[in-house]
């Protein structure tokens, strides 16, 4: 994970001389469908899990789009505090003006996760995946298994 981050950072630095977008502080918005965690906040760094690999976002990151993967998203606010959130799926938008929007379908702080229920979900999802008959139901169940596995991992670490 950190290898990827370093890679993104390196790319960042190499482009620093030529880029034309602003050096404004990061306007960070992070919301799930029923909760808003950050709205236009200025944070130091955000690490996000995406399908093209986990990466870190610093202010004035190169504009990009990414799709969130189930996993843990870490927000480094000013100072040394790091907050961890579990996200199920969603999108990341990094715009030219240094604003970052992360929209998750479901998100929760990692320390609020309950390991027991997370394992329950995983077990149920696994049995649903093995008993699924149609292709579509199987694919759906496998996605649930993937999310549940990450959920258990997140709950164990939190």
């Amino acid at each position, binding site marked *: 994970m950190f290898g990827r981050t370093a890679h993104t950072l390196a790319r960042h630095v190499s482009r620093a001389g030529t880029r034309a*977008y602003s050096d404004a502080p990061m306007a960070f*918005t992070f*919301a799930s*469908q*029923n*909760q*808003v965690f950050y*709205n236009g906040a200025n944070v130091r760094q955000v690490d996000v899990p995406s*399908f*093209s690999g986990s990466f870190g976002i610093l202010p004035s990151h*190169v*504009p*990009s*789009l*990414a*799709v969130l993967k189930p996993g843990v998203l870490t927000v480094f606010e000013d100072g040394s505090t790091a907050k961890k959130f579990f996200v199920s*799926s*969603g*999108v990341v*938008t990094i*715009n*030219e*003006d240094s*604003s970052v*929007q992360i*929209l998750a*379908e479901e998100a929760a702080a990692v320390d609020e996760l309950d390991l027991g229920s997370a394992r329950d979900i995983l077990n149920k999802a696994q049995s649903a995946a093995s008993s699924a008959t149609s292709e579509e139901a199987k694919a759906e169940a496998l996605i649930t298994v993937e999310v549940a596995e990450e959920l258990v991992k997140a709950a164990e670490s939190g």
Partner: protein
Amino acid sequence: MFSRCALLLPHNGHQQVRGMATLKTISMRLKSVKNIQKITQSMKMVSAAKYNRAERELRTARPYGAATKAFYEKVDVKGEEEKPNQLIVACSSDRGLCGAIHSNVCKHIKAELAEDSSKAAILCVGDKSRAQLSRVLAQNIIGQVGEVGRKPATFEDAAKVATFILNSGYDFGSGKIIYNRFRTVVTYDTLELPFFTASGISAAEKIGVYDSLDADVVQSYMEYSLASLMFFALKEGACSEQSSRMTSMDAASKNAGEMIDKLTLTYNRTRQAVITGELIEIISGAACV
């Protein structure tokens, strides 16, 4: 709603039939108006409770919608020019008795398609918009999503609508959601929310500054943001609908109250007239003996 009932009120000084018959009609009328008032009052209470919840949920949905819109606005995505076809999503619900919420959405669409409706398809969310649009634009409606408005909208509902749009097979260059944006309890605006296709996003002028984009990412990004735009529009619509129902039911209860006052007055006057008439009959009868 009650304006029609006024026709049934007896005109004072113009009573053809005096006596019990009129008295009974008035008391029946009075009773029914009282019942209607009870219904509108409780509907108002119910929608007030629902409005509170919708408003609370809207507060979290707003930054969500704003964040989704931000990308389209910043990149300045335009529809695919070679494809003039557009898909219009009418965001209404199944329930009526909420002022002009649904008709405003439908009017907006009708006005837009008044000149040329050949290059547009309509997806109706909720029964009400379908009922109103099927009269004039029946051939444009490609589908309808029911069961909207009874329960608060969830992201799953929005995702279902988005999936329907993506699987509809209608080849559109751009699209928009027509919805009611909630302003205050008594005001709302009927607005358009544009959405685009993956190739529309890739064709945008400023997309070049965005790094590491492949077709898959853009496609998933587009699908997800369509669902979140739909979610945002459903939440705004639900909140406007409940607030509008609250105000219109409040007005209906007030109107019913006025009618009850008038009817009670007429009822008492008629009753008095009947008593006087009976007294005259008794007295003149006694005088004859």
